[in-house]
């Protein structure tokens, strides 16, 4: 009891700046009521969060470290209990993460065998999601003219939408996009044959 009173006192006195390394996370637990915590991505990597607050700038780059939103204190570890208490509801409400598939074409609008084999996986991925929102995005390589590629890119996407619908894909919204040769996966000069650019991306959200 006396211990926590003391911490409360020092929090007030120091304006949330605790200088004892061993209790650094108490800065967040005890004082900062508005704060951000960096978490690990699903693929195991961790990005960065940059805070520009009224009292300074801070950068978070280590998972499970947090800092007040006003920028008044540097990153410090946040306990599991604290994370659970403040964020379990928000984290539990996280929808299933989107997944994207790349389908490749051996010629014009003809899918490669490997990509054809992906179609059932796409159908299955959409099957048990809610309010499924799908984008089907056509691309080409830089062979031929821009005008013809715009048409081809559109045709590829339309063909995949028709195919997915024919196979009974579960969806709430499905949108066709066509990027033609403006969004190359593999950068090439103009008029270059590149099978990896002849593709349709299917993004399932």
């Amino acid at each position, binding site marked *: 009891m006396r211990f926590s009173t003391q911490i409360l006192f020092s929090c007030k006195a120091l304006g949330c700046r605790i200088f004892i390394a061993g209790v650094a996370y108490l800065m967040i637990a005890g004082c900062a009521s508005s704060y951000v915590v960096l978490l690990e991505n699903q693929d195991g990597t*961790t990005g960065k969060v940059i805070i520009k607050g009224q009292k300074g700038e801070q950068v978070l780059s280590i998972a499970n470290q947090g800092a007040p939103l006003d920028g008044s204190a540097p990153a410090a570890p946040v306990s599991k209990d604290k994370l659970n208490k403040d964020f379990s509801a928000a984290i539990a409400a996280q929808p299933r993460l989107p997944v994207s598939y790349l389908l490749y074409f051996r010629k014009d609008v003809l899918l490669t065998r490997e990509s054809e084999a992906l179609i059932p996986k796409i159908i299955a991925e959409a099957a048990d999601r809610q309010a499924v929102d799908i984008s089907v995005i056509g691309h080409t390589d830089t062979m031929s003219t821009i005008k013809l590629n715009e048409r081809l890119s559109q045709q590829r996407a339309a063909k995949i939408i028709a195919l997915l619908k024919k196979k009974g894909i579960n969806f709430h919204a499905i949108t066709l996009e066509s990027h033609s040769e403006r969004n190359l996966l593999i950068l090439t000069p103009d008029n270059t044959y590149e099978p990896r650019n002849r593709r349709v991306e299917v993004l399932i959200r």
Partner: protein
Amino acid sequence: MFRVILICSMLLTTGVWAGELPPIGYVKNITGEATVTTKGDIIRAKVSTPVYQSSVLNTRAQSSMGIILKDATVISLGPETEFAIDEYAYVPAKNKFKLGSRITKGSLNYVSGIIAKLQPDAVTVTTPSGTIGVRGTKFVVKVE
């Protein structure tokens, strides 16, 4: 020509323009009670409720809501939270990207999407005491 002007002015006066903007995302799950407010229209949120640029999302006590935006940004709100998407542009074909959002109270879980990957400085979350910049990551934020 006259007819075009007439139709335009009819659309303007009936406010159809706003309604015709495509959604930037959808509500994916709901626990308890939540609303999506767009240009003054308060809609009780359910699975598949559309979210637009300028939509404000609110959850009540013991409630939560998850949404996914066009660029695959995944956002979920804890109870008693207010979160707004003020600016949203996702036009990869024209290299146009922007995701400006704001949390005024409550708790938020954020998984960044394609915009944060392609143009990291285009993604911000504004809070009452500071602004968060997002560099391809997952984070949680609480505002009291």
